[in-house]
């Protein structure tokens, strides 16, 4: 070792201690984790309960030998268990849940895997019987159903700096039928479906992808410094959250970048409404059908204030909105699940929000095609709730 190397070594090792300013790092980190779980990689992730025609799929599967398809387990991995009135637990290893093609789709960790791998499981939405199961590689955190495919994505963080997008053909069970898109150094923010294509935010750009070949056909940068997260399709437009303080409208044409909304906390789709959070993240805003006009005027259809930041919002078929809040970082308010009722015009009632459950950190929620709502909590528990 040279003198300079020795000097560097001794200098680094003799560096004085640093007195951190934060006296309770656990509380600070925990609070940010709760927020990140909801906002990172999805903003306000909302799911509209659209019941599409069920795709007829054979219930038995053949292993293609590709190593990624796992034969369906003929019996449920765990019988649903009622834990409190109206709630039934159906998994303890879940990461996310979505619905599509008449089925429920769950992302689950493989407790035996030492490389973080897991499964995408297709479930009977009424009985939770696993119908088929695919292997997924880490990282996987979020998923959405669209264009007959299940889109699974994750990464872009310190543990997995490279984003991973895995696409599964929901109608074909006899092979891998998946494509994987890595994006070195960038995570994926969100996915929306419009005009027969998938729109994927990644890095500081948005990709247009086809469903048939799952390839990128168009890519557009959204400006230096933008970190697009949520993207939703509402009113025939794409709405992209390009920064924590604004949502940008992007018409699906290469030159069609339009209005900006001065809202933070992500955007979410609710049929023809747009759901978004305000600057303090505690207010949920809904727009009417004329999203563009309301976004430019700033006069929204309704707004509802919660006791802590809004994490997820999901529009139910009757117009009501389920909202999960994150709780405050100082612990004065706990994460909770709320129901906000809607009038015929889609405005949410300010004074009649109802707390459904307290001390629940919801990572993912979806309207079950068979009725009710399914949740995944941050401890891996997946529950069904029948209002």
């Amino acid at each position, binding site marked *: 070792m*040279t003198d*300079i*190397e020795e*000097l*560097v*070594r*001794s*200098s*680094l*090792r*003799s*560096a004085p*201690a*640093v*007195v*951190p*300013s*934060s006296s309770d*790092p*656990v509380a*600070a*980190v*925990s609070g*940010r*984790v709760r927020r*990140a*779980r909801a906002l*990172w990689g999805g903003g306000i992730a909302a799911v509209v309960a659209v019941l599409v025609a069920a795709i007829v799929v054979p219930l038995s599967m053949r292993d293609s030998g590709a190593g990624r398809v796992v034969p369906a387990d003929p019996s449920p991995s765990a019988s649903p268990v009622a834990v409190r009135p109206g709630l039934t637990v159906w998994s303890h290893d879940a990461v996310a849940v979505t619905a599509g093609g008449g089925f429920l789709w769950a992302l689950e*960790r493989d407790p035996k895997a*030492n490389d*973080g791998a897991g499964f995408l499981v297709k479930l009977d939405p009424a009985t939770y019987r696993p119908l088929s199961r695919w292997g997924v590689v*880490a*990282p996987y*955190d979020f998923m959405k159903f669209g264009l007959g495919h299940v889109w699974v994505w994750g990464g872009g*963080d*310190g*543990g*997995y*700096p490279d984003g991973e997008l895995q696409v599964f053909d929901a109608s074909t069970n006899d092979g891998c039928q998946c494509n994987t898109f890595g994006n070195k*150094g960038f995570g994926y923010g969100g996915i929306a479906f419009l005009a027969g294509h998938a729109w994927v935010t990644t890095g500081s750009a948005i990709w247009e992808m086809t469903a048939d070949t799952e390839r990128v056909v168009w890519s557009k940068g959204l400006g230096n410094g933008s*970190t697009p997260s949520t993207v939703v399709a509402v009113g025939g437009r794409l709405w992209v959250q390009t920064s924590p303080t604004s949502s940008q409208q992007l018409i699906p044409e290469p030159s069609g970048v339009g209005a900006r909304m001065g809202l933070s906390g992500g955007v979410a789709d609710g049929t023809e409404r747009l759901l978004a959070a305000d600057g303090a993240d505690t207010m949920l805003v809904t727009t009417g059908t004329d999203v563009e006009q309301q976004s430019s005027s700033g006069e929204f259809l309704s707004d509802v204030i919660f006791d802590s930041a809004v994490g997820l919002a999901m529009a139910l078929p009757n117009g009501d909105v389920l909202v999960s809040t994150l709780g405050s970082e100082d612990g004065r308010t706990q994460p909770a699940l709320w129901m906000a009722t809607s009038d015929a015009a889609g405005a949410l009632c300010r004074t009649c929000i109802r707390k459904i459950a307290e001390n629940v950190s919801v990572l993912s929620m979806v309207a079950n095609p068979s009725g009710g709502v399914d949740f995944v909590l941050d401890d*891996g528990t997946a529950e069904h709730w029948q209002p």
Partner: protein
Amino acid sequence: MDARLSDYVRGQWPSLVRYATLLCGDAVEAEELVQSALVRVALRWPFVHDKDNPDGYVKRAIVRGRINGWRGVRRHETVVSVMPDVAVADGLAALDEHDAIRRALVLLPPRQRAVLVLRYLDDRSEQETAAMLGCSVGTVKSQTHKALAKLREIVQPNEVLS
């Protein structure tokens, strides 16, 4: 947050902030860097293999966060306008020399600084350092060489010139 991770954070917080300070040269930015890294580790906790000793995983997240300019707020680095004096050979001077090196580290690009911290503070091999940084061993070698040359130039300018 998992109890083991909470215990780890409580016990290692000052040490992690010190580590990050050496990487970025600023204690305030270091805290943000460590918090961001811990958030990412907490989100990935189910996938962390050694849950009883996540030090390697956390430090990797800190280093990568620093290099990739992860979403945390990046403050402008403080440039040391006046180079430290060259040390003379006595005990006090040795302290100054160490201080001069640490101050000079701030002038290095993030990747070069990370290479030095990983190689000389953590005692990682070139292969391990490459794996941590997500680059080739050749890059580690060249970055180390450039970083040391730059430090030598800063703290021992006459020697370099001669």
